[in-house]
């Protein structure tokens, strides 16, 4: 699976790191620019794919363990649902933006907790982007790792 080119092996990890940083930037700017959780998560996965293709699945320098993937996947899904449920219980509608509170139905201390520290009044939208980004990043990475593992199993058989 891995490549033997020295140039590829030297340049893959730095490019993967830069790709990951661009993905994080895309996730965190998702509420004011095109992009967001899915796109940024897919960009981060691009770095993981590059490392797996160049170094191989077992010797990849960016190798995600099963526990790591399951924990982040759970945090992403649960965080999204919990934020939605908080809006349901506090304001009466699922995924109500309690950080921005355009309907003036949320107490100010709850609004200040969920207000994203930014120059915009985005509320909980960046947090939703972050949770979606986490989930997409580990979900797509799990698919790629599974495909790479299947290839290895096929070679063995």
């Amino acid at each position, binding site marked *: 699976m891995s490549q033997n080119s020295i140039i590829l092996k030297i340049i893959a990890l730095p490019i993967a790191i830069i790709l990951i940083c661009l993905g*994080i930037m895309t996730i965190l700017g998702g509420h004011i620019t095109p992009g967001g959780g899915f796109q940024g998560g897919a960009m981060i996965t691009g770095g993981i794919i590059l490392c797996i293709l160049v*170094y191989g699945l*077992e*010797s990849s*320098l960016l190798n995600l*363990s099963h526990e790591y993937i399951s924990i982040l996947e759970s945090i992403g899904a649960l965080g999204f649902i919990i934020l939605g449920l908080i809006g349901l219980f506090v304001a009466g509608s699922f995924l109500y933006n309690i950080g921005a509170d355009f309907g003036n139905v949320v107490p100010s201390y709850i609004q200040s907790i969920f207000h994203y520290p930014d120059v915009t009044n985005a509320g909980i939208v960046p947090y939703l982007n972050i949770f979606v980004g986490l989930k997409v*990043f580990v979900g797509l990475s799990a698919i790629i790792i599974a495909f790479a593992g299947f290839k290895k199993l096929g070679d063995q058989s």
Partner: protein
Amino acid sequence: MNSISLGPIIFGFIFGFIIGSQIKYNSKSTEKFTIASFAVIIIAAVVIAWQIGQFPFYDDIPINTAFLFAIIGLIFGKLVLGRKK
């Protein structure tokens, strides 16, 4: 107006830290990235962040804080948790 967005700084660092913790050498790795290699990566990332500029937050810092703190978090996570398997 003096405005600094704390959100990209905090969450960029946390996100980078989470992913950087998985940059590990294992027993089958033949590659060796030294401290100097990571120093070069950091310098390149700072140049990229400077070239991106204020996009997309448009606060008063002329550098992309999310990108910058993502690379800081990545390196920090690699140093703290990303030791050998």
